[in-house]
């Protein structure tokens, strides 16, 4: 377990700045997820931490020690690659023990550590197999095994589940969560999948265009997104957004008028919004049916698509030219496409973002 600190680290390729100077501290034993859309710089940042990519400026500190110019093994990091990066000419045991062999550890120690990793990852029966004889999930476990045998100070995982199919990904997610508990290690996990980040991480760093948009615990990001980007990125399905205008402010409430018509009151943190044009955001799971309730915060629309997912139902509703997604924990058998519906936005669930 180690503490990692990035001090004004930046990365440019020629004149193109990929990551403007940023600071980030990841505590001992923390599981930190770097999330963001493709091309946001999260993998580049991970490679800088690993020592595979030199930072253009700034310092990388592990337990207070400046390792900016150090090679990966000197930093005490191990990395699991998106493509697994298993050596195709070595069997599973050799792949897992390769780092120890290079470190000139005794054969008996290598054998013990390989066996321990195989036991932990349920690879015992596969040790003599070649990578080409393994399934995607097994390959990923071997890649993780290779990382854990070296007892690194920090684990780096670069989109480790993105090459797996949906079913396998769910299973491996649980495996990683279990592994994390048994290893008690500092882990940095890069993903573009917010579900992975939400379910695995202690803390999430949301990145966009090389910048950190927000850092926080998963539920903190979910409930209190700092801006529209974070609000849209965290949560599935994504938050609904509507253009609106501030009409007034009183008793901690903000009165908004939607661009398509309709007045909405928000009781959420509205101090950062000065006035004028804003964006109203509401999560699909917070939208309620408005019939028979108070007249405030209601919008009407027409159901376009009904998606019955089993436990939940998603309604895609056309509201004055905007699509509102509503999530209900029922099958809603009596609602069909083309029907008019009235929805209500609870004032406590209405987020307001600048612009």
């Amino acid at each position, binding site marked *: 377990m180690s503490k990692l600190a990035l001090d004004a680290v930046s990365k440019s390729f020629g004149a193109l700045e990929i990551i403007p100077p940023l600071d980030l501290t990841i505590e001992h034993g923390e599981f930190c997820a770097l999330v963001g859309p493709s091309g946001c710089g999260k993998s580049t940042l991970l490679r800088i931490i*690993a*020592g*595979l990519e030199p930072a253009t400026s700034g310092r990388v500190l592990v337990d207070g020690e400046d390792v900016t110019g150090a*090679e*990966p*093994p000197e930093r005490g*990091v*191990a*990395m699991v*690659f*998106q*493509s697994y*990066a298993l*050596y*195709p*000419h070595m069997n599973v045991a050799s792949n897992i023990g*390769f*780092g120890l062999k*290079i*470190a000139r550890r005794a054969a008996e120690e290598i054998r013990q550590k390989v066996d321990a990793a195989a036991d932990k990852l349920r690879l015992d029966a596969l040790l003599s197999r070649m990578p080409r004889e393994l399934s995607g999930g097994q390959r990923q476990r071997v890649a993780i095994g*290779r990382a854990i045998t*070296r007892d690194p100070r920090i684990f780096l995982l670069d989109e480790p589940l993105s090459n797996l199919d949906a079913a396998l990904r769910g299973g491996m997610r649980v495996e990683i969560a279990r592994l994390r508990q048994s290893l008690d290690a500092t882990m940095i996990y890069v993903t573009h999948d917010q579900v992975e980040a939400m379910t695995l991480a202690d803390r999430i760093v949301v990145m966009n265009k090389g910048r950190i948009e927000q850092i926080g615990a998963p539920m903190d990001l979910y409930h209190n997104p700092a801006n529209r980007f974070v609000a849209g990125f965290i949560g599935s399905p994504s938050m609904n957004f509507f253009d609106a205008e501030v009409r007034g402010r009183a008793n901690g409430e903000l009165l908004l008028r939607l661009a398509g018509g309709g007045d909405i009151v928000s009781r959420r943190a509205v101090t950062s919004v000065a006035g004028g044009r804003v964006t109203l955001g509401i999560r699909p799971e917070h939208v309620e049916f408005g019939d028979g309730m108070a007249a405030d915060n209601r919008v009407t629309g027409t159901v376009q698509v009904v998606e019955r997912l089993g436990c939940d139902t998603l309604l895609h509703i056309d509201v004055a030219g905007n699509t509102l997604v509503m999530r209900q924990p029922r099958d809603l058998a009596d609602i069909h496409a083309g029907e008019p519906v009235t929805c209500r936005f609870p004032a406590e669930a209405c987020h307001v973002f600048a612009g």
Partner: protein
Amino acid sequence: MRRRPAVSRIVIHAALFLLLAIWMIPEVYMLSIGLRTPAQAFDATLFVWPLTFDNFVTVIRDNPLTSFFLNSLIVTLSTVALVVAFSSLFAFACAVLNLRGSLTLYATLLTTLMVPLASLVLPLAILLKTFGWVNTYAGLIFPYAALGVPFAVVVLKAFMEDSPKELFEAARVDGCNAWQTYWHVALPLVRPALVFVGIWQFITTWNEFFLALIILTRDEVKTLTIVPMQYSGLYMANPGALFAVLTLIALPLILLYVVVQRAFVRGLLAGAVKG
């Protein structure tokens, strides 16, 4: 894969056999003349009867073939080892390490592929005489290796560039230095290409005649390819013996190809389709 109709397969096989036959005519003719009596040597027919092994007996009796064979083997294997070692290191430096200036060196190396051997023979002969390498193995091994390295670098660099970059990065994370990455990861990854380069170099070195003729004058160091010269002159010719010795020279290459043909073809095709 969809199976071709029977008629189509027969036509394709017939065409392939025809091509094979055309390709084989020079080899069969070489063997055929080697097995003829002197009186039949200039017969235009492909096959004659009776066959005789006299020419082979003559060649073996007249020449210390074992010594020549060993000389060829020493020169060829040494050249192959040097070419494989230097070209793989050079390719690794260019393709994986991206060392500063390596691409300029690579481009310079490529230009040497365009220089014909004939234009190099005179300067080479002077150079080798200066080094005192005339009539030595080194006098052939080093020029052959130098001439073979550029082509081998082109092949191996392409293979290394096609290898997943993450494997080399994984090796770095696992603690490998450049040498360990080369030895434990890069070389095994390009093994089919190494086999191809090795066999190619073996064939070209084993068959090389021009430089060997100029550099080697003493029997103790002569290679097999010079032997046929004895049976072909301005006022004298012994085609039976000439073709018998040519058959003997070709034999090791044919055997080598039979043994490693799978690896050779794999080396030629590897990277042609996405794995």
